[in-house]
């Protein structure tokens, strides 16, 4: 059964059609790529799925349930976790605390337990810090557990966002440009980590990414959008060759030129590391 399905989803901002009827289906256990030029509507699709935006048309179905228009906290509780294009960590919390926060919806110890510090409180805390430690291990952040999140290098902050999202025990993980700002070595490690999530933790992953070597090596199915509309979908080999995809990325240039420029253009300049949010 399809895990996440968008059927004819639309989102309009003022007069601008950010998404104009996109349909896609993500199967359980898939690593699914969502690509397209800048401003194509990829992040908007993530925002509609996670409830940040309410769709203006169409339906979002997750795990057999219509979740269109649900509030973000409810969507998160239902099993969809995500990371952000521009990193959104809890900057003055430590690395470990960042991960722990995402345990909010499953914590059992109420205010009273915290006050009297009973068994339930300690069990809760122990369980959450054990899980946080596991996740930090996967992403090689264990040694940094006590550091403030803001002090981490850019690539580590991206990995911390993924670790935090996993604390929700999601079924589906949406990664918004996880390789942005990473060097090629970090990007290769990221590919391994994404495979690990699917193979060992049984997660389904949807990935928005501009780094084509990451997309092509990890994704099994790729969906290409441009100007808010689907222009192609298929396995990486097909997408690599697809004339519409090449045209969307490269404009009206000749195909020979297109292939030549491919590597250069597939890493647009905005990927360079930015200063994290102030």
């Amino acid at each position: 059964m399809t895990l996440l399905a968008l059927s004819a989803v639309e989102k309009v901002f003022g007069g601008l059609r950010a998404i104009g009827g996109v349909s896609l289906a993500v199967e359980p256990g898939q690593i699914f790529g969502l690509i397209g030029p800048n401003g194509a509507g990829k992040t908007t699709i993530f925002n509609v799925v996670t409830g940040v935006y309410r769709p203006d048309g169409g339906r979002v179905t997750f795990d057999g349930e219509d979740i269109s228009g649900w509030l973000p906290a409810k969507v998160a509780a239902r099993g969809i976790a995500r990371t952000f294009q521009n990193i959104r960590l809890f900057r003055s919390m430590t690395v470990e605390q960042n991960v722990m926060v995402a345990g909010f919806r499953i914590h059992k110890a109420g205010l009273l337990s915290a006050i009297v510090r009973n068994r339930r409180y300690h069990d809760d805390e122990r369980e959450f810090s054990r899980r946080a430690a596991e996740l930090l291990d996967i992403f090689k952040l264990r040694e940094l557990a006590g550091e403030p999140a803001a002090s981490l290098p850019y690539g580590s902050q991206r990995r911390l966002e993924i670790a935090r999202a996993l604390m929700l025990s999601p079924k589906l993980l949406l990664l918004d440009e996880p390789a942005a700002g990473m060097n090629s070595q970090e990007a290769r490690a990221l590919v391994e980590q994404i495979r690990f999530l699917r193979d060992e933790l049984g997660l389904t992953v949807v990935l928005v990414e501009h780094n084509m070597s990451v997309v092509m090596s990890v994704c099994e199915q790729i969906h290409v959008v441009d100007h808010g509309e689907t222009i192609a979908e298929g396995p990486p080999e097909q997408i690599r060759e697809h004339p519409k995809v090449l045209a969307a990325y490269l404009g009206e240039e000749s195909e020979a030129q297109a292939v030549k420029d491919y590597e250069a253009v597939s890493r647009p300049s905005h990927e360079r590391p930015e200063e994290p949010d102030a």
Partner: protein
Amino acid sequence: MSQFIQQVINGLSLGSIYALIALGYTMVYGVLKLINFAHSEVFMVGAYSGFYAATFLGIDALDQSGQSFPLYLALVVLIVAMLVSATLGMTIERLAYRPLRNAPRLTPLITAIGMSLLLQNLGMLIFTPNPRRYPPILREVRFDFGGVIVTNIKLTIFAVAMALMVGLWFLVNRTWTGRAMRAVSMNLDAARLMGIDPDRTIGKTFAIGSALAAAGGILFGLDQITINPTMGTLTGLKAFVAAVLGGIGNIPGAALGGLLIGLSEQLVAGYISPDYRDAITFLILIVILILRPEGILGVVRQEKV
């Protein structure tokens, strides 16, 4: 020397009241980036709730018969006032601020000023503008330490305020409610996508801040003997300056700022002239805004270009 110690003791006692109120400003600013001007009226309503609760519990009869008010009843008065103010704070947020969650930042700010005026005038209508003598929840006992007079009231004010602040620290740093509050204040978008309901968390923040203001109101009544419906204006403004001084949005900063404002007010009143006790607070505000606008414990924010 004994005069100095005397002023410091009085200053810490007064400052701890400012600190309790400043915490509400700073917590709400933390989660909503809004200066809740109605907070000074929540403080005033807290004081009046305590006044009516004590009256209802028969404090006058006890007082006239020369008996003192039992401690557990004083605690009941405190809890009643905190509950009334918490409810009021949450109601204000629900009715006046939540519908404006996505409005430009100036809109809720103007609404906050309107809410403050509305509540103050309702206060004059319901409680009458006449000052009321605050019921003697505590009977004053004076201790003389070599010329330094310490009353049990000053000590109680300081102790109650400190206990509440320790409780708040515990709540913010050691409970899931506090974890959610910190997450929302650092990044609302990320918090809600991590399964935290921002509306509930913001509601709780208003409730906690308002309850602290109510405690401040009762302590203020104990200290100043009289209360009136406009008592929130000046005291609330000073507490707001305290929050800015400590670094708005910073919880330990609000506590520190409150104590510093109380101390400077008492020292100026004692050594220069009581006429300048209000002016010093606003002088501090001007100086801090010029020299260190982010406050003592505030973090310098880098503008993203």
